[in-house]
């Protein structure tokens, strides 16, 4: 027998003891599995009840959040309603810029004209559109065409004898003529320069009277005031008589669909990217007489960092923050393609619910806020009207 040595790493007898103990496994207690089975059943019941309860709460809260979202933010209506009183017989000089955004008087006040397509005028303009001129000028008394300029003199009211109406200085209102359509206007056929469409501007008398009636804020437009204003492609429009000049823009809440890839950085952290599709629908209404739809479609690439707050079985809740860049794949206004080449940058944060139905594939729904940076585009959308807004996303997520 040798004495115990402290510095020795492995004693032979200890190694032997280790081998002996390792080789011979103790017998399991006879009721070990029965007891464990019983405990497992109890745990299962407890977990399934708790999980069911949590699932119900989470599902209900998610549904409630989504419903609330849709109820509150389904359509964001932007009412642009301003009066454009124009003194009778005064000449108005306006600059026309296709699809620009504003109508301004020289004091900087933004004005919105009412747009209305006039069939007859539209037809004549269409014919002339081939002649490569952008603007049309019409007037009762004289025609004048300048490049990017419309000069309008007093355009007589329609219905009845215009001369009589002129004499009276005002005209009776009727349902039929709630929109002023110049009757005796003419287009300078030789000089007008629209491509496919032309724009016509007619000044209407007596609008100031109307403004009083409707108790709306009026901005006087004096003679020779210059205006720039937005004109959707192809629209004939007339300043109307006796009704407020208004444009109603209604943006539908955008919904995004996408396929996302998530890379787990740490047990509770993941980096996500992917490809998502966004459709932005807007409706431009002009005094309920005419409405035009604008559809902008984008494909976007996001980069988001996600933090999983809670995870159980197949269900998880998470918070995320990141950014995205979107490129327009299709842009239409009134079924016609319009140019939209500006990429859209945005930052966002959200709370999401994820359901993993197979190992690396899950379905998710997110609700959150996003800020869309000004991309320099003149197109109006919910993102230009409300750069900071709520959004919702549904999608499939691949995790690896």
């Amino acid at each position: 027998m040798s004495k115990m040595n402290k510095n020795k790493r492995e004693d032979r007898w200890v190694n032997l003891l280790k081998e002996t103990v390792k080789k011979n496994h103790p017998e399991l207690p006879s009721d070990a599995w029965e007891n464990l089975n019983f405990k497992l059943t109890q745990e299962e019941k407890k977990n399934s009840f708790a999980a069911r309860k949590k699932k119900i709460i989470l599902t209900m809260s998610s549904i409630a959040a989504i419903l609330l979202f849709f109820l509150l933010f389904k359509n964001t209506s932007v009412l642009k309603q301003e009066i454009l009183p124009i003194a009778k017989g005064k000449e108005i000089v306006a600059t026309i810029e296709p699809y620009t955004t504003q109508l301004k008087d020289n004091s900087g006040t933004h004005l919105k004209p009412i747009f209305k397509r006039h069939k007859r005028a539209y037809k004549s303009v269409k014919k002339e559109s081939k002649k490569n001129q952008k603007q049309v000028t019409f007037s009762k008394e004289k025609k004048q065409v300048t490049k990017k300029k419309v000069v309008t003199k007093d355009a007589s009211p329609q219905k009845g004898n215009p001369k009589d109406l002129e004499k009276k200085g005002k005209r009776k209102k009727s349902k039929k003529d709630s929109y002023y359509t110049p009757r005796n206007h003419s287009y300078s056929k030789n000089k007008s320069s629209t491509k496919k469409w032309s724009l016509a501007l007619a000044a209407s008398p007596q609008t100031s009277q109307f403004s009083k009636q409707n108790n709306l804020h009026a901005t006087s437009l004096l003679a020779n005031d210059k205006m720039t204003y937005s004109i959707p492609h192809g629209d004939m429009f007339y300043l109307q008589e006796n009704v407020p000049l208004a444009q109603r823009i209604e943006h539908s809440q955008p919904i995004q669909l996408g396929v996302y890839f998530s890379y787990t950085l740490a047990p509770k952290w993941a980096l996500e990217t992917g490809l998502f599709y966004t459709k932005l629908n807007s409706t431009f209404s002009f005094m309920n007489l005419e409405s035009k739809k604008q559809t902008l479609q984008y494909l976007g690439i996001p980069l988001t960092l996600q933090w999983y707050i809670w995870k159980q079985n197949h269900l998880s809740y998470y918070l995320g923050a990141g950014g995205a860049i979107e490129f327009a794949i299709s842009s239409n206004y009134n079924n016609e393609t319009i140019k939209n080449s500006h990429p859209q940058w945005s930052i966002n944060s959200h709370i999401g619910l994820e359901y993993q139905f197979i190992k690396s594939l899950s379905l998710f729904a997110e609700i959150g806020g996003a800020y869309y940076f000004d991309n320099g585009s003149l197109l109006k959308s919910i993102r230009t009207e409300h750069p900071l807004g709520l959004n919702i996303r549904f999608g499939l997520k691949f995790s690896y």
Partner: protein
Amino acid sequence: MKQKISEKELVEACVKGNRERQGELFNRFGQNLFAICLRYMEDYSTAQDELQNGFLHIFKSLRSFKYQGEGSLSAWLSRVMVNHCLQALRKKKRHWISTESLHLSEEIIEEPNEEVINRIPMSQLLRFIEELPEGFRMIFNLYIFEEKSHREIAQLLGIQEKSSSSQLYRAKLLLARKINDYKKKGHHE
């Protein structure tokens, strides 16, 4: 007779909550894990309780197991059970360093004879380990059976490396004395 399935399939079935397969996993690896419990816990009944609790924990966390070939499951299960036992001991908040060790360093104890060890029943050998003070037992198990270094043990238990090595030495002294005493008392020829 039911065909024996692979470890990978067994794990997948257990993750899905197949009770029959869970029973199979228990039968395949239960003895090995029970031996761990017996070595770490102070008595048989506590070891039995911790075996059950440990298996409950195993079935919950089996989803995180990544199959890396035959034998990987056994190694993973052992690791989980060792950690479970250490946690169970921590929960008891006992003093890991026993005062019993104070007299041992001055004693001169002879190394047990290999033949003697071979003839002692396994259950008795396990009992000797069980009877070690908690701190000694943990360090002895971690160093000898789990083959951890003193640095790893120190990090795991939040003690100093020196403390780990000195407690291991004392654990071995105490164990050797128990074996020698067992022989002297005539249990062994």
